[in-house]
């Protein structure tokens, strides 16, 4: 059952990154769209993500529930030492989720719309930035659980070049995923062109920030290069990700939307695998060199078994229903 739970945890994180990420990305794209095209972009976007929007964000809740039931030590360590970025991320989630719905359901369309838009756009940027910062901090080895002053314990664990670089990289990836997704959703050739442009722009940004992640890893002595280059799986995935980049640009120019989506998803998955495989099952690396591992801190066997069954049962109920939702609202309306 350990394996089942860890698989679900990884899957939930990955799916949140891909689906929730595309969803954040939609707001990021709005941020980088000139104001004259904004309302059009917004329409396409609402149409594409409206129906699946609540469901996309459930993956985060699933991941967090798995963490606190089965890996309480990891959940509490994060909660204590990354309190500040978690709180900021939560504010982002609150602001974004409510602004998105409010702007759609406000019965009177007046200047409040602009306020909702602003909140939505900026929180779409802040939230993945901090998600990335949190993810970066977990593996950076900067979290200091023996610190005796506020700044070392609660601030510098996450406020460092490496974590921030991972945060920016995450933002770019989200924007990229959303642009690729929206290419397939747009009906007019002109829209399509705009989203292709955006995808190219975000892709370049992602590559640049990716380089920045490596640079800062070097500065901050995070053994990222070792994980990626000295580990066969890490190496293979980074090579695959880079190769698929070439294919991706080719497809982008050709405008093949269906395969593009799969490929973009594949790329992001490979990047996540490359970064995390080498230190798996360590989930949090601490400053004093210790690590908190998934296997070592797992909950007692009975908890693990019941959770495992609950997850399996849940997915039997959820997956067909969810698949049908995506299928039903994918069909193009005339």
């Amino acid at each position: 059952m350990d394996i089942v739970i860890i698989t679900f945890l990884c899957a939930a994180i990955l799916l949140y990154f891909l689906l929730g990420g595309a969803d954040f990305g939609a707001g990021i794209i709005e941020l980088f769209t000139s104001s004259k095209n904004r309302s059009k972009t917004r329409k396409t976007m609402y149409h594409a993500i409206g129906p699946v929007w609540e469901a996309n964000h459930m993956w985060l809740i699933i991941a967090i529930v798995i963490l606190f039931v089965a890996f309480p030590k990891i959940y509490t360590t994060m909660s204590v030492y990354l309190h500040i970025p978690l709180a900021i991320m939560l504010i982002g989630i609150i602001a974004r989720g409510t602004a998105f719905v409010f702007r759609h359901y406000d019965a009177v369309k007046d200047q409040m719309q602009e306020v909702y838009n602003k909140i939505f756009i900026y929180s779409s940027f802040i939230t993945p930035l901090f998600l990335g910062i949190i993810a970066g901090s977990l593996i950076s080895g900067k979290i200091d659980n023996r610190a005796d002053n506020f700044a070392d314990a609660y601030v510098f664990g996450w406020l460092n070049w490496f974590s921030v670089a991972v945060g920016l990289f995450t933002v770019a990836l989200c924007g990229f995923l959303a642009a690729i997704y929206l290419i397939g959703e747009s009906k007019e050739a002109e829209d399509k062109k705009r989203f292709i442009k955006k995808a190219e722009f975000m892709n370049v940004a992602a590559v640049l920030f990716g380089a920045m992640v490596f640079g800062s890893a070097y500065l901050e002595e995070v053994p990222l290069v070792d994980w990626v280059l000295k580990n066969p799986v890490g190496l293979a995935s980074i090579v695959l990700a880079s190769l698929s980049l070439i294919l991706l640009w080719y497809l982008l120019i050709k405008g093949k939307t269906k395969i593009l989506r799969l490929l973009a998803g594949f790329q992001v998955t490979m990047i996540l695998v490359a970064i995390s495989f080498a230190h798996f099952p360590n989930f949090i690396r601490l400053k004093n060199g210790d690590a908190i591992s998934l296997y070592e801190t797992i909950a007692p066997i009975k908890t693990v078994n019941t959770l495992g069954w609950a997850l399996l049962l849940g997915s039997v109920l959820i997956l067909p229903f969810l698949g049908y939702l995506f299928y039903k609202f994918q069909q193009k309306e005339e």
Partner: protein
Amino acid sequence: MDDFLAARSQMALSLGFHIIYACIGMVMPFFMAVSHFKWLKTNNEVYKNLTKAWSKGVAIFFATGAVSGTMLSFELGLLWPNFMEHAGPIFGMPFSLEGTAFFIEAIALGFFLYGWDKLNKWFHWFTGVVVGVSGLASGILVVAANAWMNSPAGFDYVDGKYINIDPIAAMFNKAWFTQALHMCLAAFTATGFAVAGVHALMILRKQNQDFHYKAFKIAAVFATIGALLQPISGDISAKDVAQRQPAKLAAMEALYKTEKPAPLLIGGIVNEKKKEVNYAIEIPGALSFLAHGDFNAEVKGLDKIPENEHPPVAITHYAFQLMVGIGSFLVLLSLMYFFVLWRNKSVLNKRWLLKIFVFAIPLGYIALEAGWVVTEVGRQPWIIYGIMRTKDAVTPMPGIAWSFYLFTAIYASLSVIVIALLYRQIKMVPTLYSGSIKSPTTKAN
């Protein structure tokens, strides 16, 4: 404000905020399903418009409920890491099942809101029912988790270690059923009266009477039945509390001295220093009966409980009085409503009754929040009753007060916006659904 107090206040605020949205999210789908069903059966456009109008409200509340719930699942760790480290694996079972229920709810909501004219009409209706049922299931599950904090089960506590963990036994702890029953009824009562009251107000203003009267009737049925059942369920809860948490019961009734038979106090001012209650009306023997079903039974007072395990008496007592007071008032209102219905079948021209319904808009929610204060404050100083003290669970991070101020500001502004949005929705009813305007004298059944 010290950090411990700030953490408790932030938790209470977040839960108090979430619970309102959650209750609306779990009850409104049932109202919608009834109205939707009537539309499918009668083809009366008014019901379709009503379903659509309600569903917009639900979308707003659902989103707010979902983000505040996401917030809570992090907050448990952000504020109470020590509690979660030990409790997570024990009481996590309901939360993981709840995850499934939420997920189904979110998917079904996607179908329901975006499925008009796209899905088979009965499948569409069914997705609405699924939203309600899975919302209700989430509510029951999360209350089971809370009940575990009142009545810990499913583990052995030996030398400060939590061993022999059994998550299923933890979920079916002694308190889960009474609490979940009472909570669900409260959700229907509170939301029912709030919705019925808003529509009563619109009827009084003579706007779209047919539309609002249909809405009023659906909400009022749920509200009144819930209100009539609530005292029965509350009585079961009280007997249950007397068994498992005598300190909480004593605080609810501000019973400082053990008595046999014990009187029930109505009103009164608690003096926590002198440990006495002044100016209260006493009903002899009534507390003995409520707590143990026997007018002569002994009821344990706070004198039998070590001083450092006393909950705050005044807050618990006032909150309990408030809940029961409102509960009794709502029972009266429900009886009046049924009486009028029985006499002449329509309340449309009974303006005084409609006015009372308008007055009752916030009451259910006030009682609901008060009830939670009874449960939670009455459990103090324990976070896990008898096992872990709340002050030992709080995060070591200093400066929580700032976080409390920040989140208070956020919740306050969200509440303002949501109220403004609802106001706008209601104001737009005549323009959006103008087909449904009928002359004020139309009798709708």
